[in-house]
């Protein structure tokens, strides 16, 4: 049972289940956003953006190798 501050204004999950129209109404903004999200397409990436993302990817891989060197060097 969820409370809304006073006993008179209580509603529980099972009650809400029986009122699908109420759920839809409350989640209006969420439904709109979900609809918008469905139509959200892949953005066009220019060559500079692709280069930037690849640069970051290579940076991460390079750094992981550096960490492994740092950890295993003292052991051997």
């Amino acid at each position, binding site marked *: 049972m*969820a409370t*809304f*501050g006073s006993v*008179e*204004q209580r*509603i*529980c*999950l099972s*009650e*809400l*289940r029986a*009122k*699908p*129209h*109420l*759920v*839809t*109404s*409350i*989640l*209006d*903004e*969420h439904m709109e*956003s*979900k609809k918008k*999200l469905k139509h*959200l*397409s*892949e*953005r066009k*990436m220019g060559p500079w*953006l692709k280069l*930037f*993302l690849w640069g*970051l*990817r290579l*940076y*991460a891989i*390079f*750094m*992981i190798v*550096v*960490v*492994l*060197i*740092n*950890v*295993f060097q003292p052991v051997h």
Partner: protein
Amino acid sequence: MPRDAQVQGIGEFAVETFSNPAKAPNSEETARALDRLQVLYARQRRRRFLLVWLLIGPGILVMLGENDAPSMLSYAATGSQFGIGFFLPFVVLTFVMAFIAQEITVRLGAISKAGHAELIYRRFGRFWGNFAMIDLLFTNCLTLVTEFVGIVAGAGFFGVPAYIAVIAAILIITGAYSFRRYWSWERTILTMAMFNLIFIPVAYMSHPNWGAVFHSFVTFGPLPGGVNKNTILILLSDIGATITPWMLFFQQSAVVDKGLSMNDVNQGRMDTALGALLAATAALATIIATAPLFMHHMAAAQFGAAQFAQALVPYVGRFGGTLFALGILEAGLVAASTISTSSAYAYTEVRRHSGSLNKSFQEAKSFYGLLVAVLLVAGAVVVIPGSPLIYIVLVVNVLAVLTMPPAIAFLLLLANDEEVMGEHKNTWFLNTMGIGVAVFISLAGIIYALSVIFPEVHL
């Protein structure tokens, strides 16, 4: 007043406008609607504290979740090797940076209603979406192992065998998921996360020199030994203890699962700021609590959780040592829960499967399946004899920092994406702050790499 009229009368938002809904709402939507109804009521009645109480959660969870076992051990190592000095204000600075990054995820989640992995997948395509997810799952799996190391070490202080500690932890974590309500899970983990503040009394028990604490914040010093390879490693480890990729994925997905809307962004910011404040306080307390080990020249660089707790007993008493061990145990438990949830969110978002804590196991099999699977694998690694745990613990925080620049780049690109954010996209001020964080983290990584590749060069 009839009951139906009361329900419909809760705000103008609950007016019956949908006479013929296309399909019946599922359990996730019904649960979210119930949460939203309470928020709408609190907002309409101007009950500000109730509103904040209802809307806080993801920010505090992500910040206290990041104060995980390896992070607390990193702060303990900092205090024991450098005492009270440079690292106190530095840690506060890292939490400011964490707030800057996490605030963006609140807006992204509340406006797009999509998780971080889903947005990367949709806007940058399958290739980059899979890359982001694989990076996250890889670092999350390693981090989860270290959480279980912390749980086992903390429980070990009380004489609990490793396998019992692991099984009990998995049962507690999966037990919290059994509510099938995001709200109930969030409140359970939040209650557990509050025990992170247990480090504050331990700090008091160590009788710190408050003048030195104040002096360190004014002067950003002293830094015993100056800047050397060890200082850089601790520096990187402390950044990794505060800012990591899983936090971005977790908070955005949690904001969506909680159902925050555009009107809730300010409360989301407050939640994140409060989380940063609490987590920074616990982190500072840990550094202060272990500073006596530095004063007494104890070689604590390679200490584990139980060893720190034991070593502190002469300075904070048996009770203080017990609290320290409990704190590490709690840190591992909370982080294991939040990190495994972030993995499950990201996986189901990219695979376009159903994933929400408001859904039952039947409705979200792959979500809960992955959650339990990563917990079982990480727990098993810790109890299997001969596992390379020491390597994993050593690299986990550093790896988190080094994989952060690509994650921040995607975050900033999404925050500036007009199709996603509309009028709520990043301002020049927020971009400057975000780019500042990215540059700082990248530079720290590059300096670290240089210190490894050219060890003979003195920094």
